[in-house]
């Protein structure tokens, strides 16, 4: 497979002695927003972390543009692929600007000074996440939602074509959730960035995704356009939830109403 894109080919992933992903093949279509949904502990995060090369594979391989990611130099990979992890503790004393600046690491080198391009990338990232007025505050002094946006600024400053986001909206209130998802969609539409996200809210997923992937018990249950796959049957199959799917009055897409 020498086509452009990120492909997981029959991968088998274990964590702490347990098999999480028994045999999974997954292709990330470039230039799209893909959202992975599923019940708790179905392996969504594990899939994302495997794609980001954080987890070793017991079998199979993950290929980016035809090259096995486990054989690529770390720095090169970091310039193409960024991951926003689920939760992380910032070291004491680090400011929001400092944290976002860490995102420039793959573009830096021991003796290469901080350039104008680096500073601009950080400013853009802070602006996009609405954290510019908090730039000099220490991360530990922020609220949960602000902290999440600071970490998102780090991922954005990294300036990669591929961005993986693991539950980027967990601690945010609804307005901020919408804001972040709109930002993500803008990143995709304006600069063609490929986004893969894990979201726990199926309705938000339907709103923002070009493609939805449903996972259950470590396997892919279905994938396709939101209009096609967000149906009452699929929701019952995935979550065991009885629901009704109606057209969203604003966007026209599917809206899940639990029974």
């Amino acid at each position: 497979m020498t086509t452009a894109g990120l492909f997981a080919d029959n991968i088998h992933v274990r964590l702490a002695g347990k098999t999480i992903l028994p045999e999974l093949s997954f292709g990330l279509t470039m230039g799209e927003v893909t959202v992975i949904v599923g019940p708790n502990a179905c392996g969504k995060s594990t899939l994302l972390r495997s794609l980001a090369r954080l987890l070793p594979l017991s079998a199979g391989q993950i290929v980016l543009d035809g090259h096995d990611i486990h054989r690529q130099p770390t720095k090169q990979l970091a310039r193409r692929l960024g991951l926003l992890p689920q939760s992380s503790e910032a070291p004491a004393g680090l400011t929001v600007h400092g944290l976002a600046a860490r995102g420039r690491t793959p573009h830096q080198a021991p003796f290469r000074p901080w350039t104008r391009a680096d500073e601009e990338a950080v400013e853009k990232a802070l602006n996009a996440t609405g954290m510019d007025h908090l730039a000099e505050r220490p991360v530990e002094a922020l609220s949960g939602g602000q902290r999440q946006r600071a970490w998102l600024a780090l991922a954005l400053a990294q300036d990669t074509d591929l961005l993986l986001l693991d539950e980027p909206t967990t601690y945010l209130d609804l307005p901020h959730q919408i804001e972040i998802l709109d930002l993500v969609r803008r990143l995709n539409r304006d600069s063609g960035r490929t986004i893969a996200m894990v979201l726990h809210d199926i309705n938000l997923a339907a709103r923002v995704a070009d493609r939805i992937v449903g996972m259950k018990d470590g396997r892919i249950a279905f994938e396709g356009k939101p209009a096609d796959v967000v149906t009452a049957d699929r929701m019952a199959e995935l979550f065991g939830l009885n629901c009704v799917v109606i057209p969203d009055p604003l966007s026209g897409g599917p809206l899940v109403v639990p029974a």
Partner: protein
Amino acid sequence: MSSVTRKTAVSMGAALALAAVAIVTLRTGSWPLAWPDALSLTGMDATILWELRMPRALAAILAGACLGVSGAVFQTMLRNPLASPDLIGFTAGASAGAVATIAVTGGTAYVTAGAVGGGFVTSVLVFALAWRNGLDPLRLVLIGLVFGITLMALTNFLLGVSGPVQAGDVIRWLAGSFNARGWSAALTLAVVLALIAPVLWYLAFTLDRLDTGDDLARLLGLRVDAARLFLGLSAVVLASAAVSICGPLPFVAFMAGPIARMLARSPTSCLLLAGLAGATITLLADLAARIGFQGFHLPAGIYTALIGGPYLLGLVLLQTKRNRL
């Protein structure tokens, strides 16, 4: 960027302080020097200055710098303020090696070799046992601790069973001292420091980015395991070199890092400042050792914690007050 300028300013201040202490220490001693006669290269004053005081002071400065930097590297790369080569077995290995050579050869002729050998063997063992698909900081720390405690117990045991003359040698060596350290000692340390410093300078980039965790560092393209291995080896070489010259000076490696970070108010490692802090405290300790106390001369190792401890405590309390205001 203001933290960088503060770091630079504090480092320059520390260098000046070190220079001032060095001048004081060169002028102090039981033999009063006549300046500027001493600066010439002949005569008794010159001999005292150039053959005795200068090399001893340089050895103290360089040993302190090696220990300070070594401690700071360990603490940062293992993400633990309690990590220092004293605690994590490497200086214990050097001590055990040195003490074993004293006990076996009955004298201090091969102490340096014993110390270097002991430190080297211990490090290899610890790193090898801790390596499992990479170098996990916690595993490294724990195995190092085990070695440290075991080797200290062994050292104490050797102390208990050795004859009185050897016991005296052992104790004097274990106390840490710069007595009769001359140009060969100073030059050895200078060479080691000159070789390791560029390595650390290069690795400082990665070192400063380990604090957010290994996963994130790898995501950002850093080669964490390789960096940690080389950082660890560099730190061990520095510590072993220092210990082989002057014995296991307590506390210097532990306190230099925190002192540097608190003075510079910087979340990153401040290796240069740690080296300066270590050097200054060690030089002061040696000065105290030479001055003595009512006719008693105690080795420098006694004074490092007596001086450094209260200073570190003071800084911690000051920082608390500042944080609460």
